[in-house]
């Protein structure tokens, strides 16, 4: 339900991974995802999983958070698994009604599900170890070359940051509105589709007005603090590569090399 959405889930800790430059981490996640597509044998995923667990451990993020990240896409995982298992042709193992489960199907299902799960866990680790501001700064710096082509990279980074800050507030506001209208007899939980739609209509206008008011207040507050939307800006913590990052890039390089070498040396894998 709408009420359960959480966003911006930074996990505060003083680990090596937290200290790394967000650009290093972005690169790491990118490489990790590529590696997941390089391999086909399910056994390799166990290796990827171990790497992931080591990274979570190094970041000091409890493993519970890994599972929490997956809970949001549980439905997608189940669906992927079932779909792959039932619709992959091959040697039949069991036949139930019109469905045939094949050996290849099971393998494919495990592979696809594991791939998605690992991808999401990797991306979650990035958001657990970098604040939205760091991510925005990292992206801004990584893409700063595009500024010359007229793409407003800096403005986009500010927008991303504000979105991270305000989405939880807006959700909270929506919750209050839902409670208030429910107290006046609106039916969001029970009631038929028509009644639910009518209920939603009563949320839209107030939510719109609140958002407009909030944005104009925020714009005024930003202006009062000297935000001009143009000109040179600086950073409290400018992004500079440190020795953790050199180590990080080295680790990323070794990691991906293993996959590439394995891929080249044995085509059967």
């Amino acid at each position, binding site marked *: 339900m709408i009420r359960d959405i959480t966003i911006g889930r930074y996990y505060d800790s003083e680990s090596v991974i937290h200290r790394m430059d967000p650009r290093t981490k972005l690169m790491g996640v990118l490489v990790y995802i590529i590696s997941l597509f390089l391999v086909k044998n399910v056994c390799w995923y166990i290796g990827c999983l171990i790497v992931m667990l080591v990274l979570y451990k190094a970041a000091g993020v409890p493993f519970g958070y890994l599972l929490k990240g997956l809970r949001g896409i549980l439905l997608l995982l189940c669906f992927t698994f079932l779909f792959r298992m039932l619709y992959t042709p091959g040697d039949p193992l069991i036949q139930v009604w019109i469905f045939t489960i094949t050996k290849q199907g099971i393998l494919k299902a495990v592979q696809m599900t594991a791939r998605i799960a690992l991808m999401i866990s990797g991306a979650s680790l990035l958001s657990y170890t970098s604040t939205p501001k760091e991510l925005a700064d990292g992206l801004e710096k990584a893409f700063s070359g595009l500024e010359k082509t007229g793409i407003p990279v800096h403005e986009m980074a500010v927008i991303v940051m504000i979105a991270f*800050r305000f989405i939880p507030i807006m959700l909270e506001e929506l919750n209050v509105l839902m409670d208030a209208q429910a107290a006046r007899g609106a039916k969001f939980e029970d009631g038929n589709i028509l009644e639910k739609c009518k209920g939603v209509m009563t949320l839209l206008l107030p939510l719109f007005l609140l958002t407009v008011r909030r944005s104009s207040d925020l714009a005024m*507050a930003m202006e009062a603090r000297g*935000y001009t939307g143009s*000109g040179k800006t600086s950073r*409290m913590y400018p992004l500079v590569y440190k020795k953790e990052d050199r180590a990080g890039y080295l680790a990323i390089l070794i990691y991906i090399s293993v996959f590439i070498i394995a891929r080249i040396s044995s085509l059967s894998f």
Partner: protein
Amino acid sequence: MIKIENLVHNYTIWKDENTKSEKTVLDGISLDIPSGQFVAILGPNGSGKSTLARHLNVLLLPDEGTVWIDGKNTQAKERLYEIRSRVGMVFQNPDNQIVGTSVEEDVAFGPENKNVEPEKIRRIVEDVLRKVRLWEKRKTPPSKLSGGQKQRLATADALAGLPECLVLDEPTAMLDPSSRKEVINIVKELNQKEGMTIILITHHTDEVVDADRIILMKDGKIIGDDIPKKIFADRSLLKRAKMDIPPVVELGMRLKKQKIGLDEPVLHEQEMIRKITELYRSKCGGWKDAAR
């Protein structure tokens, strides 16, 4: 610090696309606020207080009259940012002025946009966060702060622009009593320790008994401008501005009516306690009280 002469501000109200009407929100305001003064502005909703505040930060420009900040006319467009940086603003709803996803990031937002060097930003951030007593919370996301802490953060944001004057537009309207006290104490400290000029807009008369000066507004005009003792003694004036008398002052006035010897208006709780205790002791004799 701030000088205003005959300031007029009109809002345009569009009935539909073609018909519009004008509403005068500020109707000939003249004011002179010297550096280091603690000024409180009181008045009912819609009396023009917030509009006035916005002129001080050059978020609005006069329709008539002139506003000078530090001797500079706010109409001078080319110096807008220079003038604006002299005056920091704190607004009513803390959630609508906090941009960052952590306390220190949020404070750094202003200086970062003015391209201040990183090292100096860090110095400013530490300095202002210590002033509002949030340094220990610098890594905390704003959503985890209490209302009073959020408003203190908003104050730190304003201070990070290194202003000489702080304008606070009903900073306590959405807070609970203990948060209100936190915020007001910080504001008083800034005035006393740093010599910051303070302009505090509020509905709560008990917050401003320590102000150097109280300005009462109604319908876009100033209807009273004096020291708290004089303002709070004038019941009919306060009534016109739709303000309450602070409870301590009210009690003093009622007792005076009953001919119980409180000749001067008493503003502070401590003072009132002392006076009543003295009165009581003189009434029944000091020795009796000592024997108790």
